[in-house]
């Protein structure tokens, strides 16, 4: 995968110190996974997913955290463990804060999503930056136009639609049908 054009930290409301959170948060998750008879690799995988989800939630405008980041990440990790190993769910107790955490159903990607990602990457860095900023970061068009060096909001808007058209054409060229993307 090509390098991200937009650094991860810029998508947060405030830049996040992942390294510090890794050091303070991983022991709790590792302890939990070990208690559930999971391996070191399981702990690492679950923790990385939990951090990704925490990063996304942290970037949401209306996100309010009523506990420490470490406790929140542990709560997410417990949910992920439940999702991954449904049968062992009855052995996990979630407190009120942890129960309130919602993780989107489509968090784990499907093969079709991965195929579309490859096609999206073929549209080029500039298109990816525009689409990422507008659809993922929900950046207002005015700010997007300024950040990515467009002369006006109108030209940024038209470019955004052209990028989507490019993706659509790419999908068409590959003869991928609507049904192929059905999951």
């Amino acid at each position, binding site marked *: 995968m090509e390098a*991200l054009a937009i650094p991860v930290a810029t998508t947060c409301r405030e830049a996040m110190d992942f390294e510090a959170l890794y050091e303070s948060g991983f022991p709790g998750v590792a302890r939990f996974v070990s208690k559930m008879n999971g391996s070191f690799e399981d702990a690492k995988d679950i923790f990385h997913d939990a951090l990704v989800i925490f990063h996304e939630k942290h970037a949401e405008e209306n996100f309010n955290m009523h506990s420490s980041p470490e406790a929140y990440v542990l709560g997410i990790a417990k949910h992920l463990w439940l999702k991954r190993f449904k049968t062992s769910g009855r052995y996990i107790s979630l407190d009120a804060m942890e129960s309130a955490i919602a993780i989107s159903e489509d968090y784990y990607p499907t093969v079709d999503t991965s195929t579309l990602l490859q096609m*999206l990457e073929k549209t080029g860095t500039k298109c990816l930056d525009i689409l990422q900023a507008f659809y*993922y970061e929900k950046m207002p068009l005015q700010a997007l136009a300024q950040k990515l060096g467009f002369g006006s909001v109108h030209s940024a808007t038209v470019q955004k639609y052209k990028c989507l058209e490019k*993706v659509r054409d790419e999908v068409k060229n590959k003869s991928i049908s609507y049904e192929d*993307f059905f999951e």
Partner: protein
Amino acid sequence: MRTSLNDIRLAEKHIQKTLEPSESLVFQARLITEPVLRWDVYLLRKVCDVLALRQRKGVKTEMEAIHTRLFTHPAKADFQKQIFQLFKS
């Protein structure tokens, strides 16, 4: 704006629920009769999902680098010991 681009614009507004009521009625009628337009809407939704996936991959790459640093650097020996003790069989 070209018709094709305009349809993408309408598909975007449809997903964001920002079409004017009159525009929305016409668009919904077109969705019934125009498969290409349905495809535009579907693809746009998928693109949004995929962009989230791409961002997640970026964060995970960063996590991998931090993990490697924390589990190989001699200055983090205590941290490593604390974690590895949990997985001793």
